[in-house]
């Protein structure tokens, strides 16, 4: 087996050194009844690289990659161009095959990357500090609610009706099992909800996604003021991080915590994972933050260096008193994010956002011109909601047959709301071409005829 360096001669000699007759005898503590004496029946035996590649490539070939067709899907995962440099650099073995940087002397590379990542996240969100990443946007959002509960010592979170249903459901699961209450606003397809009226002195946090899952933009300023007056933390959720190249950052509008999905920068769609959760907060709450943090320090020779820090919040030190049970973060995805954002830089990040927004503006205008289609949004970034004259899901399926991934039918996210079944979420990023646009328009026109 190509991955196993021991030869049979090695094994014999090592067993002799140990003083046992066989590898099996090393398993003598296993109860006899549970010990298997041969490979498990009915499973294939080892295979060469070529055979494995064939088997798995055959599965890949049965899918329609979003990169191959006109694609207008969003709803929390976005098709963007990732420069080849990013994937080349993250595959360097020193990054790819290293562990969490608990040993700083042999991990300054990963640690400096995390320090740069934390700085980048703080800069684009307009916040003071950020952690070294979370599993994804939904879990970052759920951890933000838990943090707000700790900070405020209150137990009721208010969720906007514009929050992605997967984020809402992830929070809901924690609410049920960890024990706090939720006030969930109705799905806000129109972008008109009044959230300030829902908060009071019992509320720990108000969770608002902007752009919302329906694409609407929210000025967080007035909400932040309302929250401050009642001692409530404002959690801003950003599911499309590229939007911050063009939009006012949540930190500048008074958010206390930002929970975001970073997939759009540096990371592929990957059928939904792995992605990378971003988490930023105010300095005064740093000791209540979940997840790993990298900090600057000096070494014994007085040189600047980096270490994981404030680990007394974490499970491996605090055990049952930890702020979160999280152990792993999304290190390699955070590295990809950092490298891509470094390539973009100030000018590229802002330009990328402009290109995205312009694509969406033009597409919205063209779609609005189709019979049977209306656009719900007045403001949006690179994704908006359209109303069709019939249920959207069958239309999406029909367009998929024609080789166009038209968008996400709202019924997939809100199956319990038949009144929203005619709605379709449409996203347009820099990867959309004029031809893609034409293909969508033509296919939609014919299907709606």
């Amino acid at each position, binding site marked *: 087996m190509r991955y196993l360096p021991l030869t049979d001669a090695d094994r014999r000699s090592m067993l002799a*050194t140990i003083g046992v007759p066989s590898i099996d005898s090393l398993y003598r503590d296993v109860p006899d009844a549970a010990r298997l004496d041969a490979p498990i029946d009915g499973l294939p035996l080892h295979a060469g690289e070529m055979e494995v590649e064939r088997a798995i490539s055959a599965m890949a070939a049965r899918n329609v990659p979003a990169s191959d067709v006109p694609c207008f899907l969003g709803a929390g*995962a976005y098709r963007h161009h990732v420069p080849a440099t990013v994937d080349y650099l993250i595959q360097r073995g020193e990054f790819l*095959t290293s562990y969490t940087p608990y040993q700083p002397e042999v991990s300054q590379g990963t640690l400096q990357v995390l320090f740069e990542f934390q*700085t980048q996240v703080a800069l684009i969100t307009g916040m003071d500090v950020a952690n070294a990443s979370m599993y994804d946007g939904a879990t970052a959002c759920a951890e933000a609610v838990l943090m707000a509960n700790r900070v405020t010592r209150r137990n009721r979170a208010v969720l906007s009706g514009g929050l992605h249903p997967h*984020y809402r459901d992830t929070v809901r699961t924690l609410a049920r099992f960890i024990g706090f209450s939720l006030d969930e606003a109705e799905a806000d397809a129109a972008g008109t909800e009044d959230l300030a009226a829902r908060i009071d002195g019992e509320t720990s946090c108000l969770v608002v996604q902007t752009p919302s899952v329906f694409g609407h933009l929210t000025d967080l300023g007035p909400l932040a003021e309302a929250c401050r007056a009642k001692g409530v933390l404002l959690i801003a959720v950003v599911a499309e991080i590229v939007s911050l190249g063009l939009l006012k950052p949540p930190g500048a509008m008074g958010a206390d915590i930002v929970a975001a999905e970073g997939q759009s920068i540096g990371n592929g*769609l990957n059928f939904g*994972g792995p992605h990378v959760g971003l988490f930023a907060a105010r300095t005064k709450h740093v000791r209540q933050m979940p997840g790993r943090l990298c*900090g600057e320090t000096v070494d014994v020779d007085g040189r600047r260096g980096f270490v994981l820090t404030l680990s007394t919040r974490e*499970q491996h030190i605090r055990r049952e008193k930890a702020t979160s049970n999280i152990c792993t973060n999304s290190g390699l995805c955070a590295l990809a994010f950092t490298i891509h954002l470094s390539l973009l830089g100030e000018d590229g990040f802002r330009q990328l956002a402009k290109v995205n927004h312009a694509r969406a*503006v033009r597409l919205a205008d063209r779609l609005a011109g189709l019979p049977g289609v209306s656009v719900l949004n007045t403001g949006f970034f690179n994704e908006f909601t359209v109303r069709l004259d019939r249920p959207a899901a069958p239309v999406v399926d029909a367009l998929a047959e024609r080789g166009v991934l038209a968008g996400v039918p709202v019924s997939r996210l809100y199956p319990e709301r038949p009144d929203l079944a005619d709605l379709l979420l449409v996203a347009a990023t820099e990867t959309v071409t004029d031809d893609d646009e034409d293909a969508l328009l033509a296919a939609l026109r014919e299907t709606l005829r």
Partner: protein
Amino acid sequence: MNTQGRPTRGAETGASNGETITGNRGLMMEEPLIFEADTPGACGVDLAEPVTADRRLGGLEREGPVGLPGLTEPQVVRHYTRLSQQNLGIDTTMYPLGSCTMKHNPRINEKLARLPGFASLHPMQPMSTVQGALALIDALADWLKRLTGMPAVAMTPGAGAHGELCGMMAIRAALEHHGQTDRTHVLVPESAHGTNPATAAALGFTVDRIPATDEGRVDLAAFKERLDDGVAAIMLTNPNTCGLFEGDIVDIADALHAAGGYFYCDGANFNAIVGRVRPGDLGIDAMHINLHKTFSTPHGGGGPGSGPVVLSDALAPFAPIPSVVHGPEGLRLAEQTEGETAHSLGRLKGFHGQMGMFVRALAYILSHGADGLRQAAGDAVLNANYLLARLGEELTAPFPGPCMHEVLFDDHFLKDTGVTTLDMAKALVDEGFHPMTMYFPLVVHGALLVEPTESESKATLDAFADTVLALARRAKAGDAEYFAGAPYLTPRRRLDETAAARKPILRWTPPAPESQAAE
């Protein structure tokens, strides 16, 4: 180019003290923060012009710059290449971090995970366009069920700790379903990973520690003593964190089940027993599997991981959504808590799990096959026992062997030398090895937990053993001063972690303009 045949052999003058003008040391480059390398206006991408100048931002446009630095592509490549060179990885050297299973990461797995048919799939595409992806998840799930002898598996948890959360939520959901909400205690051995008590406590359980025997196993008598109708579950790692198989595990499971509790097994150490023991045969109700350990998906400097949870029949109805189900039109995702998933504990993260990790894990599994997985586990255990035998010459093992895939030493052998476990680890770094896990598990003093994995050759194990033995002898010979200063040859040495925590600096901030700085 040396086309003239000039002699390149230098004189042995000993004149250099290792100091250089740049601070670089040969192949080891000093590298500033990316923010300190800013060239305003430089950019590493070339983007098209926007197709329209119209804006629909409702007056919420960003004002002022973000503050990101500008760099071109070659500058970015060099920066991160240099940073990578300040890291150790499995590709570089043996990485015997106990409890972490730092094994070889095959590159075919990377290649396959990057096929557009997986990497470029949007999670919300119509089911008809992702049948191959669902089939891959289903195939991996089938392998995991067969390898563990368990009837069900939840694929969505994002990492091991997330899997623990999932498994313990399933147990809570089952207790609630059966009206047993007065079962509020979770028993956790003293040697457990920190995530175990953290998970149980996060879910509102009271954590009770159960003691270990002198042989490093759960004290069965004390465990049985503790069982009553307030016990919800035990969380037990097997093989345990001392690297030992819990031989009483079936008795533990029987007694626990008789008392109405559920058995959560921390599967972090599954690598020792794959293909040799099925957790399902041991009476386990839930166990997470770290795909980034046992099935070799790269650790990536701290994630992303993936932590599927196998479940018994008793817990299967409570598995999280979404899950892949077989239907009349092929495979589909059950994304709502209704019908067959009506009792589901709910959603744990966005979308459908760590697909990129699933592809890598399945490639690893297919490469090994049932025979190769069994051999890999056996080799991992053989390597650990070989190190136990060889290192036992100078080091002290708190428990007799055989061990499983990792071997535990305490710091008894360092008594009165003035050298600590930490010093030993730092000295190993200079010798070109990643240190072992230190001070974990907590049940022995000054723990050194060594997990070589099956990826190391006998020659590497011998080199490692020779090095550790020589260091141990050096410590015993009274050279504590050497150890106190180690490592000497790394990019940074003995960083001040206390100062970092006392006054945290968690981000770069631009230097104050000179006029202000002068004031």
